[in-house]
């Protein structure tokens, strides 16, 4: 049903109906934004990356192979953009925080905020290869099969990478006292 609807939206996009692409954005922006946020760890960068991904997907819609699922394709673009961003960020001067607007309001629950920060900082301690599998599985809720298609590696590789990533993450969280052994 969802696939069928998506096909219809893609047909309309290719026929030049911008509104149909708006519906696809509505459908995926939350998941994609969260994947990017967890990959790069910064709201502003995640916003820019998500916007770039939607633009790139739109511009390349004509090249998209309709035998594959749209979401696999767009997730793949997202992962690549996030990884590119991370490697660029390593090479260039870090921006200072003068224009950062990602701070939460004062009414935000402190404990939740702390947990959020701890999880994010633990994720950032993983290498991007391990981080992406955790993010796709736990934040985008993709199945192993879907992850295999997004990452273009066999399911077996996805599984073993994810197991190792969870083990590493467990070690980091234990050392920080977030998980007690």
């Amino acid at each position, binding site marked *: 049903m969802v696939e069928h609807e998506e096909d219809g939206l893609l047909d309309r996009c290719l026929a030049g109906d911008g509104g149909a692409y708006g519906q696809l954005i509505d459908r995926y922006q939350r998941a994609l934004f969260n994947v990017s946020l967890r990959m790069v760890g910064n709201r502003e960068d995640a916003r820019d990356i*998500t916007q770039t991904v939607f633009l790139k997907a739109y511009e390349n819609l004509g090249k998209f192979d309709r035998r594959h699922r749209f979401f696999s394709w767009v997730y793949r673009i997202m992962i690549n953009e996030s990884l590119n961003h991370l490697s660029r960020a390593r090479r260039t001067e870090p921006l200072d925080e003068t224009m950062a607007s990602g701070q939460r309001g004062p009414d935000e629950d402190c404990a939740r905020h702390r*947990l959020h920060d701890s999880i994010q900082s633990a994720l950032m301690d993983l290498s991007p290869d391990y981080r992406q599998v955790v993010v796709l599985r736990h934040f985008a809720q993709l199945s192993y099969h879907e992850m295999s298609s997004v990452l273009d590696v066999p399911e077996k590789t996805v599984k073993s990478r994810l197991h190792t990533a969870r083990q590493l993450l467990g070690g980091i969280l234990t050392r920080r006292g977030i998980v007690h052994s």
Partner: protein
Amino acid sequence: MNDRKLQRLMNDQLDGIATPAESERLRRELASSEDARIEYRNLGGVFDVLNRAEMEDPPPDLKQNVMQAIRHRAVTVPVPVRRSWLESIKAAFRTRPAFGYAYSFAAGAALAILTFTLLSGNLLTKSGVESGPFTGTMLPASGLSHLRRTDSREFTFRGGRVLAEMLSGRDGLVARITARAPQGTEVEVSFDPGQLDAVALRQHPVAPNDVLLGSGRLSVRIRHIGESQYLLYLARRGPAGSPLRIAIHSPDGLVQGELETRAPGSGS
């Protein structure tokens, strides 16, 4: 059962994809091994923490920005493809032999200008031609920590904000321009080339904005959604410091201002 198989069973169980037979096998393993129970509890802790992490809402203007960019690009005249450009030159060569001499002269002149430009520290860039962060001998190796902010101006307009800062040190100046502006906005920085030399330019992130750095002028036309930062490294040619002029041509109109470039403690 070896460790690897046990670990796979634990992950499958917590992932909710273990078969009833696998669940039973895991139950038996856990019942017989204290180490396995500890490992399973730890792994469960990781799942628990990850499950407690909340999804965040995307910024409310995300969709609108994308749709605006799509509309903007839809009306942009496409850049002619290189093949037709080459073909037109080849055609000119075929029909008018004198054109060949003129073309050779023009190509040689262009090469000379490019060499001079690179050697003198002036870069001329355009998105798609050279959009990477500028590195190499012209780029100062040190960071910005030895500089202090001596002046700043903030320009706000509908849908955008540009922060222009002057960072000064003993050896030189850096104009830091941080822009988040609607597509089509042009940020122009101009200075007296008799007093200041543009030594290098660095941008972050590598964004597809149109950037033009010439003698006494840096111009950035915004094409990238989101924040872009430019570091313009300048060298003083003398003690006097004429100001750096900033002009922003946004859809709202023109806003402009100046940044002081006097050396710290010069008092003049």
